[in-house]
């Protein structure tokens, strides 16, 4: 039946499997130039049940339509707090696609891939300069794996010193990955309440000889610089511990403060945040880890080094914690990050930090008269409001969904956990005053709507591909794959 349903601007699109037609193909293969032998039939399978059969046009149209239901940084403002959704420069994409970078096999002899190793070596050096750490690994696949790598190195260092320590202190503002990574590295987690900024006294109260490390995020997830950090690092060091810093918020610090200079022993980077590599709909990220000199022997295998003969992969490191994945890291992501650093230069990176902080503070100034700001200290690259003060039982979730109707990606919601109904906004430096003004106007209008017409919030979104989805139902009766009727 012809109808207008599924037509118009938001096109409907069935699953690949539902469109499949027996005999349709979307590939081409050269004719065999060797005798076609087949393995013993006892070892081989019959056809892959349910697998799609589609033409190239079907596939192209399918994914093109799917893409139109998405919202990316290129679609509009994406102030997802803690995720640093800055613009992803297009030249980085071109750089990562140079055939000399994409078409190189990881098992090629090192002497034949000197350009790739040189790039990695230079990137290590630049990240070291930005963070103040003398040694670096580029291997971790993402921030969470970087945390795990760092905590393993801390564990290995204590072990090498004949110490058996069981605990890691983590403030309550931390990302969930921090305690999860610590547990994976064999530690018990001690949570410490921070009240916005972590105090030396709070750390002293839980610090003892059984603590292997303190794990902080600086600036923390409220956007606040941990002002006592030097004293806290001294305290932890005096009691034989190390300090890990989660570099998720490094975008607030480039050219301003270097973790390696102020007592931090280990830090991971999120190249997909600070260094503009695309978030890719969920990944791949990249989580290099910088360490102080004494942790260098424990870096994962292999380490990129340089000597008179050129660049090398060094496997001869008896104290290494081992490898975290196959090969050397997310090389394609490393190329993009290096391309970004070269485009920005030292001054440009500092300017990026300054403008990211300016943008966040401007949003704070515009919204503070209407939205509740629980922590009044001077914040840096992001600002966290609470839902207190919203009228008519409207909640953070409703504000977020209503923002979609206004054409924005919502901020991070309900994190950090220490803020009631948190609305965590991180604009980054790549947004203009005009964009931010329009976004603030929308949030102010939504606060008015909550007063006068709360249904507009509770029914939102009404202008997206789908209306509000039943998330509880998805979890209650999980349907995690398509199956033929």
């Amino acid at each position, binding site marked *: 039946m012809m109808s207008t349903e599924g037509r118009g601007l938001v096109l409907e699109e069935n699953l690949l499997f539902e469109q499949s037609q027996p005999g349709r193909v979307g590939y081409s*293969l050269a004719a065999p130039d060797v005798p076609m032998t087949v393995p013993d039939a006892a070892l081989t399978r019959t056809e892959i049940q349910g697998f799609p059969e589609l033409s190239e046009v079907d596939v192209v149209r399918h994914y093109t339509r799917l893409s*139109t239901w998405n919202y990316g940084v290129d679609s509009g403002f994406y102030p997802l707090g803690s995720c640093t959704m800055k*613009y992803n420069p297009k030249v980085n994409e071109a750089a990562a696609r140079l055939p000399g970078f994409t078409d190189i096999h990881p098992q090629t002899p090192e002497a034949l891939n000197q350009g790739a190793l040189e790039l990695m070596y230079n990137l290590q050096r630049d990240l070291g300069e930005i963070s103040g750490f003398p040694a670096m690994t580029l291997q971790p696949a993402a921030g969470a794996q970087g945390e795990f790598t760092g905590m393993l190195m801390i564990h290995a260092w204590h072990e090498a010193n004949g110490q058996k320590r069981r605990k890691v202190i983590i403030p309550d503002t931390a990302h969930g990955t921090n305690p999860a990574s610590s547990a994976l590295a064999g530690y018990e987690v001690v949570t410490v309440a921070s009240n916005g900024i972590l105090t030396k006294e709070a750390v002293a109260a839980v610090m003892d000889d059984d603590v292997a490390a303190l794990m902080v995020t600086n600036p923390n997830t409220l956007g606040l610089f941990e002002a006592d950090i030097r004293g806290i690092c001294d305290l932890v060091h005096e009691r034989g511990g190390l300090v890990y810093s989660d570099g998720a918020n490094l975008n607030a610090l480039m050219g301003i403060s270097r973790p390696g200079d102020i007592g931090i022993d280990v830090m991971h980077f999120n190249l997909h945040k600070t260094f503009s590599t695309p978030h890719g*709909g*969920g990944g791949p990220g990249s989580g290099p880890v910088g360490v102080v000199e004494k942790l260098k022997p424990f870096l994962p295998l292999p380490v990129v080094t340089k000597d008179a003969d050129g660049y090398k992969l060094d496997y001869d490191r008896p104290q290494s914690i081992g490898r975290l994945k196959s090969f050397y890291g997310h090389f394609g992501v490393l190329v993009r990050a290096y391309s970004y650093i070269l485009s920005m230069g030292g001054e440009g990176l500092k300017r990026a930090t300054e403008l990211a902080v300016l943008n966040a503070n401007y949003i704070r100034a515009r919204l503070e008269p209407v939205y509740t700001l629980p922590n009044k200290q001077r914040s*840096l690259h992001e600002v966290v409001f609470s839902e207190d003060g919203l009228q008519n039982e409207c909640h953070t979730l409703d504000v977020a969904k209503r923002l979609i109707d206004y054409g924005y990606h919502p901020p991070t919601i309900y994190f950090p956990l220490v803020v009631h109904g948190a609305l965590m906004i991180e604009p980054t430096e790549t947004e203009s005053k005009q964009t931010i003004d329009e976004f603030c106007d929308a949030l102010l209008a939504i606060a008015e709507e909550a007063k006068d017409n709360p249904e507009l919030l509770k029914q939102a979104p009404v202008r997206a591909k789908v209306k509000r989805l039943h998330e509880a139902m998805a979890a209650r009766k*999980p349907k995690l794959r398509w199956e033929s009727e």
Partner: protein
Amino acid sequence: MRYLPHTDVDVQQMLEQIGVSSIEELFSGVPENCRLKKPLAISDAKSESELLLFLKGLAEKNSKTSDWDSFLGGGAYNHFIPTVIDQLVSRSEFYTAYTPYQPEISQGTLQAIFEYQTMICQLTGMDVANASMYDGASACAEAALLAIRAGKKRHKVLLSQGLPPQYRETVATYCRYLDVDLIDVPLQDGVTSQQELSALLDEQAAAVIVGYPNYFGQIEDLAAIAELTHTAGARLVTAVSEPLSLALFKAPGALGADVVVGEGQSFGIPLSYGGPGIGFFAVRKKDMRVLPGRLVGETVDQDGKRGFVLTLATREQHIRREKATSNICSNQGMCVLMVSIYLALYGKQGLRKLAELNYAKATYAKNQISQLKGFAIPFAGTSFNEFVVTCPEPVARLKKRLEQQGILAGISVGRDYSDLKNGLLICVTEQNSREQIDRLVLALAGGEA
């Protein structure tokens, strides 16, 4: 700077609204003793044209697979990538989005992951697949942890020596400070020794992990291994580093595997010096709630219309923190898309034909080399698109000799397997023409191509 839109007037107006007189004042929360007192020693900004010239210079110092007769595999495979893939994944609605936390404006990503999960299940013969892990090796490590979690008091993981060395090393790193005993299961004739396996299996064993095909390209007898494993009450984890094999050989799920993990790079992801790739991870229904990583599920919206969301998140770190099933906080989004588009294009027929072609080419090469004087095929069993040969001269010297003829002959296995000192792992895919294979054979024999 072209990525920074602020004019001087903008900055002035913004500072006024904030109520400060300079940007510097905004950093008043950073104490003096934490300040960097000098400019960053990073080279000056390059223009776009300078940047591209510079990076091209670096790229040209590398050896592209396409410029060589390359027979390198060992966990990263040189397969043809259809043009469509890069065209589609370059749509920035996909690649500039993040994790689909807001499902109403992320249906593109979510439906694509749901379809990916489905295709991984179909290929592996399993019930549930997650939205992907970092790579095959880390997925394999997470599978060991799943088995320990689900195996209650059991704390042993038995690793076949046929598992790729990088996988074994990664498992060891992940388990370094956990209460897990890793035990090597020796090989016999290039596959996991069933005799040794049954001797090592006991009521402490949580998992047996084997490669399929294994590092030597050999097809393991999964059904027999599954039976031994299940009799001891452990889980069989199958690690697949070359998933194209799954289009030809029996699905691990059909042979009794409890967990199937692997590397998806073969499916449309560039070699890119070994990363990013993608780790796939599939389980039986019974392990759905102890699975690591993200999951996408189907649901409906307020109007009853089908839609997709992230689901079963109570397993994950942002909710469960130190008690989560994993610390992972991402999936390989872009690579999920590449794999999905690749599988959709090749489809039911194409993937099988491609796998058959890989098998036939590798078999041709294997037969030719087996006839060379001094060379031998040490293992009798079936292999897919990789195989080991033992060489009459030191492998390092042989590889160097062939390099001078434009051939990357393969990977030396002697470093990881002392009993295969002169072993060379050769991979042949659809990218290798018969002429290339013939040149390899001639060169191995000592001739000039």
